[in-house]
């Protein structure tokens, strides 16, 4: 399924906003990945 905006009465050409999309996800993804990694390092003690 397309993930772009679509109004019933006006079919607009898809606006490519890949750069903004990547930037947005990187801004939240990197800290989140860092947090998960740090926690998993701590969790390792559980299985060590």
């Amino acid at each position, binding site marked *: 399924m*397309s993930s772009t905006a679509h109004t019933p009465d006006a079919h607009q050409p898809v606006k490519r906003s890949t750069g903004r999309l990547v930037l947005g996800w990187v801004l939240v993804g990197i800290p989140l990945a860092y947090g998960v990694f740090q*926690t998993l390092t701590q*969790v390792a003690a559980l299985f060590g």
Partner: protein
Amino acid sequence: MGFLDRDHSIAPPGFNRWLVPPAALAVHLCIGQAYATSVYKTALVKHFGASLTEIGVIFSIAIVMLGLSAAIMGTWVDTNGPRKAMFTSAMFWVGGFLIGSLGIFTHQLWLVYLGYGFVGGIGLGIGYISPVSTLIKWFPDRPGLATGMAIMGFGGGALIASPVSQALLKAYDPNSGAQGWVASGDAVGKLFLTLAVVYLAYMLFGAFTVRVPADGWRPAGFDPSKVKAAKLVTTENVSARNAIKTRQFWLVWVALFCNVTAGIGILEQAAPMIQDFFRQSDGKSLVSAGVAAGFVGLLSIGNMAGRFAWSATSDVTGRKRIYMMYLGVGTVLYTVLAFAGSTATALYVVLAFVIISFYGGGFATVPAYLRDLFGTYQVGAIHGRLLTAWSAAGVAGPLIVNSILDAQGKPGQLTGASYQPALLTMVALLIIGFVANLLVKPVDDRFHEPRPERRTSSMEA
């Protein structure tokens, strides 16, 4: 400040809806810091010469304000849109850190209560609900996935804030290398100022990235008639004022309250509980403090993963069915934990992980459940009112577990058997929640908002 208005945040044609989840995540990852306060709790006890309870009050005020502000400000958030709501949340949340740091630097604990607790707590409540109804409108085909992504951020925020705060406290305190080191108040104050700056940047990124869909927008290929095929999914709308008059609202409130109370009971006791379950006859536990800390980390990941995975799954199974799983399977798991949890560490860890994933899943699924029952019209405001169940559970869960454990013995002497009464109380609560969820039926027509075409046809008649 007109640029914050709802009208100025309507998405232009071609706007990619996948930009909205990172905007929502940016806010939730920041406010999720509320669950990382244990990092500097001891430092504040030492700095203020206060008791653990007095410092714990800071967090309690924040959570109570979360519930109250979400309930009171929900309609305002729905009316003014996510941009103004996220901006306002940022001002309160960051303002809370600034006032709090002033309190730490001047040794005024009441300023920390006022700042982080009261002002910051308002930011928590507005921030928590701000992206929910917008995400539901952008993802009518996958509302559980969308809200799961955002609310996962609240769980993830603590995972980020804990290690970052620890590193910053070490960097700000020249005595950090000393044995038995506890961070100075000055270091905690500087930490608050740093977090304020970083959170301001992230939350403003969220506020200026988020967009609301234009009226009549729908995803390409989305057929609303297929959604209607599910019995509990309405195409009607119910106002927040009317929603709280329905039986359905209160049944979902009870289901959420029971699920959260049971989960908080385990989360709050996680580290000592695993040590107590594997305490030997000589009083020593097979589980060291380090391993117990790892277990707490694992539960945090289970909490976060459950928010996303179970909420996304609910788009396929339906909301009522997945709540039946949280509460029904949860009942079985709690019972097994009570009677067989101490037989093997692996069994205990797996049971607790799944239970906590259900706890997180309950939070993340509930906005979509409300959308199904009450429509999208004021779902943010209804969600805000429902979060009072969280505040109530935040008081009830620890109270139930702590009072039962107090009667069983002293900390350090408890065993797995000491937890049986508390766990069986949770089982009873989960059964109540299961029954409440089972009783949820579609909302009566008399609570529906009139449709414009109906109004027109009645005027013509």
